[in-house]
């Protein structure tokens, strides 16, 4: 404790010089930027703004836009309602209603789908935790950044909307299908 206190050093704030106190040079350097853009736009045709929303910005790779649900290449919802995203979501924007015990036997041994999946886009902070935590690669932050609506309830996206916006994920992971195929090939026990 003592040691730490003895080690404290006081950093003195540097006094501003007379010129700096005038603020005029700083103002001037700022205006220089403004004038440069003014000049470039007016005479050299270099445009730095765009006419949104007619024109839209192309977002770079890895941009974190709105999270949507995806389907696999066989048109099945990838989400199995494990609720990890709901758990990890910092602003608590995700809300999942897990299903009852209804099973869809056509999908191998996946036994679970979300009955309802809602993301409150007003709460979402686009942090990407949901995508990172998802064990099924079922939710991705996509490039959508312009989310609008006329009411709060409209900004709560439900499962249908999220799936429609999310599209198809062409990733190679089809683990449930592989599991079912593997089981069918086995001698000793076959499902169905």
């Amino acid at each position, binding site marked *: 404790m003592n040691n730490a206190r003895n080690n404290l050093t006081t950093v003195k704030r540097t006094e501003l010089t007379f010129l700096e106190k005038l603020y005029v040079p700083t103002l001037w350097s700022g205006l220089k930027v403004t004038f440069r853009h003014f000049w470039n736009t007016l005479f050299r045709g270099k445009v730095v703004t765009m006419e949104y929303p007619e024109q839209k910005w192309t977002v770079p790779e890895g941009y974190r836009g709105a999270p949507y649900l995806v389907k696999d290449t066989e048109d099945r919802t990838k989400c199995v309602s494990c609720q990890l995203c709901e758990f990890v979501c910092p602003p608590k924007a995700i809300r999942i209603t897990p299903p009852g015990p209804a099973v869809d036997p056509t999908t191998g041994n996946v036994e679970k789908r979300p009955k309802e999946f809602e993301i409150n886009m007003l709460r979402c902070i686009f942090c990407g935790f949901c995508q990172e935590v998802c064990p099924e690669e079922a939710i991705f932050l996509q490039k959508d950044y312009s989310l609008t609506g006329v009411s709060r309830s409209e900004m709560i996206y439900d499962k249908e909307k999220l799936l429609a916006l999310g599209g198809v994920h062409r990733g190679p992971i089809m683990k449930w299908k592989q599991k079912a195929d*593997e089981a069918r*090939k*086995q*001698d*000793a*026990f*076959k499902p169905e």
Partner: protein
Amino acid sequence: MPQEYRLILKHADEPGYTPDIECYLRHGGYESLRKALALAPRELPDGKRMSAQEQIRDEVLKSGLRGRGGAGFSCGLKWSFVDRRSGKPIYLICNADESEPGTFKDRQIIHKDPHQLIEGMVISCFANDVKLAYIYIRGEMPEGAKLLNKAIKEARARNFLGPNILGSGYSLEIHVHRGAGAYICGEETGLIESLEGKRAYPRIKPPYFPAVLGLYQCPTIVNNVETLAAVKHIVAMGSGEYAKLGTPNNTGTRILSLSGHVKRPGYFEVEVGKVTMGELIFHENFGGGMRDGRKLKAIIPGGSSSKVFKAGETFKLKRKGPDGQMAAVDVGILDLPYDFDSLQQAGSMSGSGAIIVMDDSTDIVEALANVSEFYAHESCGQCTPCREGALWMSKALHRMTHGHGRKADADYLLHIAQNIQGRTICAFGEACAWPVLSFVKKFKDEFESRGAADEARHGSIQGATGHPTAASPGLPVI
């Protein structure tokens, strides 16, 4: 000149020798039983009295008889562990579940001379105050079970069995119980569970040592067929005479089962330790050398669960030198005396006395895959390492023998096997791990080159194949 010494199988292969009781009696049968029952209590110098039973037990201990089933544990010591104060009945079970691959000696005794086994059993039961004994015979020997049942009936008719045997006041019942195709029933606690009508799951020890908590939670003795037959001869000739056979600490005779690529496979009864491995394989009195002029490649010395020997191996054995001091001597594999201790010192075991010989045409990977499939099929599945590991090894070897090996598979197999041995409820863990450990360690180049060749052909694979031949053939689907 090395030759057989026939004690137990003395008459078995004689022309005209039949398994019925008349024939057995003609050859001096049940004389040892009469002798045992007639033993009078002996006064000891310290004034204590030694009952007839104690005398027989003492004889068996002094004879140095070691169990012929696999572990080679002293029979007399095993009997001495039996809890005789519990007040519970003591049971004796004859382990005739001969299922170690390579072994077929008990079959000879049961089929050719069943009364010898019965006599040995009655004496052993008498010595241990057993009133009820079972012969647990493997299911695959229906003929043997019939013969034994017949023999028991005959013996009962002549009062060698049943109430008040030969007027001695001692009563005994023996029943034949048939297994149904499970190797694990050879493990004594697994056998006991099976005899109780359950799945043959070996019991945890402690606390379920058969000598204390065996069949129906009563003290129980489980002995191999050959061991019990030997008891008869110990009583007949006395422990001193018996101990003169064989070599010190490896007394008596043993029936060895020789199979594989030799000219003359078969069973041979020899004095323990008097014959070397090389003589067994090459001498004309025994194996007669390799088939088709091939060269020796590997020997499995004591049933498929024992560790394999590679041709040309040498071992450091402790031997008494000319000066009487113990010294380490280099012994080649063919000069290895076939006894319990030498094989153990050589890093393997004599197990059930089953020698499987492989010549240089043998694909060692295929051979191990065959053995591993056996153990994957026979694992009872009670405890984790063996349940999962046995099939895992079998799957990996199946993959290797089906053209999808990897160079790394040698270490992969060692890794699995090392995690099984010593971690399971019963010795099956070792039984399934040892072949893999020894085959892979001693023939590592073959495993690696095969894997490397496959990789060169396919590129490195990640679990490409299934296991299309189920490791449990005929496994029921429910």
